[in-house]
């Protein structure tokens, strides 16, 4: 969106080869420049990558889809049961709907609360406040922790009987069961997740903001834009590549969420997530591999929804 605004004004100023007209005729020339031996080398190297890609990404994916129509315990024979696994997941597996809801809640929380907060902190820190280095380190610090560690910290804070939070709030006679009450524990966990995610988003935006040409803001100010307008109309659009990265990271984080709830209570009792259900069913002594694969396929379809939307946007905007 920002690029299309920029392009008409930008074209005359930039050298012709990076403009839309200069690019087209280059492609055939480039491939002609590769000699026969090079083509072989590229083919071998690319072929290797493709083979590995098929073996480790497409193979398992297709196997999951195929297995999702089966009933198999990992040892005996595979029996084909058609769509029965999907029927059971939807109609006869109580943790499924909560898990789906929690994944979407996770996405909404990261996208609508944590990410804007991260951007907000980045903007504040970009203003060169006093001690901004200090704030920056403090907010970024949780990012270096793995989510499993954050899960352990969360337990120390939220534990009903021995946790820090209930002591601080003075709720010792009627303690709140932050992690055991299925109505509130997801929020307690999301707060811990947000704590980490905000720092991550902040550092990305901060890097982007540092790279914004100050003359942009100056000229906006000269044109009479106030600070709010300058940010939304000038700075934010130039952050577009960062926005895309943050968006992708947010979606990935929400869909792959697993470690923190697994560390807290193995993803049960109000903390169900699709990834946990997949693990619970597939890993283990007498695995329900077919059933677990079906949940994995559902997660795959949801991910594909985001991936396809993203790719469509990128591909539509690219060939300008």
């Amino acid at each position: 969106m920002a690029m299309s605004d920029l392009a008409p004004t930008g074209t005359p100023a930039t050298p012709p080869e990076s403009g839309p007209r200069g690019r087209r005729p280059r492609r055939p020339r480039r491939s002609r420049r590769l000699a026969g031996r090079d083509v072989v080398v590229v083919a071998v190297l690319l072929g290797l990558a493709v083979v590995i890609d098929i073996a480790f990404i497409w193979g398992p994916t297709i196997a999951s889809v195929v297995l999702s129509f089966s009933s198999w315990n990992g040892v005996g024979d595979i029996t084909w049961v058609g769509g029965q696994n999907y029927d059971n997941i939807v109609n006869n597996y109580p943790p499924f709907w909560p898990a789906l809801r929690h994944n979407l809640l996770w996405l909404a929380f990261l996208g609508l609360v944590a990410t804007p907060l991260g951007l907000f902190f980045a903007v504040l820190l970009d203003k060169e406040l006093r001690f901004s280095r200090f704030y920056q380190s403090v907010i970024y610090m949780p990012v270096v922790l793995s989510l499993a560690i954050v899960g352990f910290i969360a337990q120390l804070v939220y534990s009903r009987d021995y946790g820090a939070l209930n002591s601080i709030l003075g709720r010792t006679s009627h303690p709140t069961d932050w992690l055991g009450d299925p109505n509130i524990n997801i929020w307690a966990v999301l707060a811990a997740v947000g704590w980490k995610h905000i720092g991550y988003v902040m550092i990305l935006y901060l890097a982007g903001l540092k790279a914004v040409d100050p003359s942009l803001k100056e000229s906006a100010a000269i044109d009479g834009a106030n600070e709010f307008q300058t940010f939304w109309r000038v700075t934010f659009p130039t952050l577009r590549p960062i926005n895309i990265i943050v968006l992708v990271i947010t979606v990935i984080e929400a869909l792959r969420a697993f470690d923190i709830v697994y560390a807290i209570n193995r993803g049960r009792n109000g903390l169900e997530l699709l990834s946990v259900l997949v693990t619970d069913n597939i890993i283990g002594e007498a695995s329900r591999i077919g059933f677990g694969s079906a949940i994995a396929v559902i997660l795959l379809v949801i991910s594909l929804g985001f991936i396809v939307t993203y790719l469509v946007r990128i591909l539509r905007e690219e060939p300008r």
Partner: protein
Amino acid sequence: MVPSSAGRSPAPSRVGFSLFGAGSPALSRRTLMRGTALGAGALALPAALAACGGDDDKGSDSGSKEVSFGSNYSDPVPKTAMESVLKGYESKASKTVKINTVDHNTFQENINRYLQGTPDDVFTWFAGYRMQFFASQSLAADISDVWSAVGSGFTDALKKASTGEDGKQYFVPFYYYPWAVFYRKSVFQQRGYTPPKTLDEFKALCEKMKTDGLNPIAFADKDGWPAMGTFDYLNMRINGYDFHVKLMAGKESWTSSQVKQVFDTWRGLLPYHQPGANGRTWQEAAQSLVAKQSGMYLLGAFVGEQFTDADRADLDFFAFPEINSQYKQDAVEAPIDGFMVSKKAKNTSGAKDLMKYLATPDAELLFLKSSPNNVATHKDADTSGYSQLQKKCAELVGGAKQVSQFLDRDTRPDFASTVMIPSLQSFINNPNDVDGLVKSIEDQKKTIFTT
């Protein structure tokens, strides 16, 4: 609105993230070749590493003198204890045992693949359905001949727990740890409580503890499994061991009036349980017993791990009270840990010889030196070194008419973990919808027990 200076500013796509190729600069032949080679190298490297790792286990089938031993005793104390047990065998039989220790949870989670791949000759495992499952998948070797040599040392209940569905033995029991209602002697003495025999007495005691400002029953189910112990005992006391076993095997209906009665009785007891159980680990609940905030705790003998050595002498227990006079206190829940021989063993005769050694009281006592919360399975194991509590545990199990293994060992593991854990947790959250709960369990059970 965009200022005209945009042309001079670094285009957004140049700000450093060319990850998405928005404006990749002219791609020369050299950078293309270099990039491709680097990329291929980076991808091929892990694959090459993985390929190297695969062959490790293949060189171990040297003479028949060596037996390999797959162990899940990964914590330091039991690990050294197990090593000393196997050293005892090595010096006695002048053979070598190659120990392959794997992290406890990893071992359990990978057991399927482990047994189908290149398993060790002897491996550590559990009695009950968990053992029978692998026996019936013919992943475990029949060791009935070992039993005819060592069987006289074990009670019938233990033999039953070591027997597969086909009537053959597949398992050698090593030690067990009974579940019972634990309490602190000093608390009971100080307040004049006496261990209850029946459910009514139990409830009366809970009521008294409440008025004394104690939390009657410590309770935790964050880990998902501890509440299973309560269910097992209530079911075995109300409906008897045989019904319990059939229910676990998927042969009785969860919507039956018997099961509903279990949950109804449990609901009557829940007000005496520590609230907020789903957010508490068993260790935290045990600490409330240690701190004399809770009066009693239904758990395995491993609750002693949370007590200091000095305090442990103060720990005592009583058997779960009688509910139905037909079944009295006949059944005891006492999970048994022991050993099995894998079907794919390279040295089966050596493995069986090792099993015979592991079935001796000496081997058991050597191990128990370091874990004072367990009890040896062998009849002739010398109990003089036992603590008071261990002796009482041994009596409890010795006097039991039936021994159950624990819900997640007595039924299909997938049913226990994917159905029973969430169901019991939701019962603890909302004990009032028993009908909906048992219907949901029954519906899910039907989909699992078909395979």
